[in-house]
């Protein structure tokens, strides 16, 4: 017999593999390539290397993190529970002797790793295209900060959307509202309101780590370290709440067949 870690690993591996199957994965891969294609399109106009370099970084803050990463995580993390409940496949896991928090954490880890397969290329490929197309050479700390921001966005959004997948039967709709209203509109409001969004901390992290160029324009009142702590805490809190919610959740699909 294997212990809790072995079971956790099996659930995570199952979720990871399941996340990368079918047309959904193809669609997400195509979606993840969009920022790189935009940079490639800009490069065809032969702008100066500096303009192309800034365009790639602008896309990171305006498109990759708040939209591309958010949508990828929405699809993958919500699917871990809500889609499986509706498809009636969750029962094969939930009727096992494995405890429910292990299932939640395993599915979270599987979703995170699967999402990174899309989000990291979405964040880094535009820089590679800027390099190839315009000869831009980014400093190592810029590339590291971009990669780290993609990982942090994945951790935080995966936690939020995993919880939504358990909390509501309309998780995709609520997730879209969260992504396109909450995360897009609140940062535009004055005062401390933007601090209630994930994207605020992601942009602060980038602003603090890449002080020159377009990313410096984002609010950097919070140090990068603090942003990391907040984003990791967001992930942990939502995964913990999801674990508690799952203990009390009925996992049969909502229909009247009896």
């Amino acid at each position, binding site marked *: *017999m*294997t*212990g809790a870690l*072995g*079971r956790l690993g*099996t*659930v995570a591996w*199952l979720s990871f*593999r*399941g996340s990368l*199957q*079918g047309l959904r994965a193809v669609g997400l891969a195509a979606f993840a390539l969009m920022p790189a294609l935009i940079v490639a399109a800009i490069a065809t106009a032969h702008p100066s290397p500096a303009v192309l370099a800034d365009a790639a970084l602008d896309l990171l803050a305006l498109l990759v993190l708040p939209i591309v990463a958010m949508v990828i995580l929405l699809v993958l993390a919500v699917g871990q529970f809500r889609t499986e409940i509706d*498809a*009636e*496949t969750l*029962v*094969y*896991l*939930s*009727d*096992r*002797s*494995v*405890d*429910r928090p292990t299932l939640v954490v395993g599915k979270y880890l599987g979703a995170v790793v699967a999402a990174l397969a899309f989000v990291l290329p979405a964040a880094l490929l535009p820089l590679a295209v800027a390099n190839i197309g315009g000869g831009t050479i980014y400093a190592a700390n810029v590339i590291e900060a971009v990669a780290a921001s993609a990982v942090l966005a994945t951790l935080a959004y995966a936690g939020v959307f995993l919880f939504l997948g358990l909390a509501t039967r309309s998780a995709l709709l609520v997730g879209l509202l969260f992504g396109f209203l909450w995360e897009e509109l609140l940062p535009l409001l004055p005062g401390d309101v933007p601090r209630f969004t994930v994207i605020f901390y992601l942009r602060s992290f980038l602003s603090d780590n890449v002080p020159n160029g377009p990313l410096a324009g984002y609010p950097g009142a919070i140090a990068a370290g603090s942003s990391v702590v907040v984003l990791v805490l967001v992930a942990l809190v939502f995964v913990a709440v999801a674990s508690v919610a799952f*203990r009390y959740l*009925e*996992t*049969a699909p*909502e*229909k*009247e*067949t*009896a």
Partner: protein
Amino acid sequence: MTGVVDAETVTKRYGEVLGLNGFSATFGAGITGLVGPNGAGKSTLFRLLAGQLKPDAGRLTLLGHPSWGPGEFRRRVGYCPESPALFDWMTGNDFVTTLLRVDGFSRSEAAERSARAVAEVDLTQDGNRRLRVYSKGMRQRVKIAQCIAHDPELILLDEPLNGVDPVGRASLSALMRRLGSAGRQIIVSSHVLYEVERLTDQIVMIANGQAIAQGDLHRIRDLIDSHPHVIDLESADPRALGRALGAWDHVVSIEFPEPGRLRVLTRSPDTFYAALPELVLTEGLSVRAVRSADDNLDAVFRYLAEGRR
């Protein structure tokens, strides 16, 4: 009550709809059939037993443990749901092995148990094929494989013969009998009494979310036999199958409601179900699926249910 499964006035609602309505029954050792028409509450009871649903009222225990809530005792229970849904991207072997790993078995033990369970349900040859290409019958069999692979004491089979071809039915019925005689406690649901009757004489009948009869099989049989029985079949060559079935004297009528299907009305469903596999094998006929229509059973269940009021 001290059964393998005890239900005391269990009620489960889906909004305004009652799935179970004060259901009380005791399921003892051996094989017990849970029989009732579609919508009677069979799957609701199974979902409650599998811990997917929480009872709104009443008390439901299996192996002495409350049905709702986690626990290591789940390793002693195997559940085969009615839904044909599977992780379609996996192979049959991978599916069974992975679920064993989730249950805590080591890699080598999981592989060994999986191979054994897949062989038990006659899927060894197809074990490395993706589940998405499995037929209805193969899906039922792989669901049963995952259900028995961890060697559970209590096996819950929700409509396991639904959509399975006649030869497959005979093979799965034999498997269930083997498991029963090996000391497993099995609860098997069906809306076809004849299927269950060949497995056991312990019956719990359910209608409108309530247990309306337990055990008294002969009285129920007499009632059902007085109603002609409708059986739907799927076949690649329904005309040839119809010609062969038409020669049986207990077959009252044969209809072809749509391409690839025929509907048979028989006065002796027992004889029909017993003789069909042999006819298929000896005549080389195609039968992809056999289903018993509910109409005649509904009348009996209504009679029984009204008799209790």
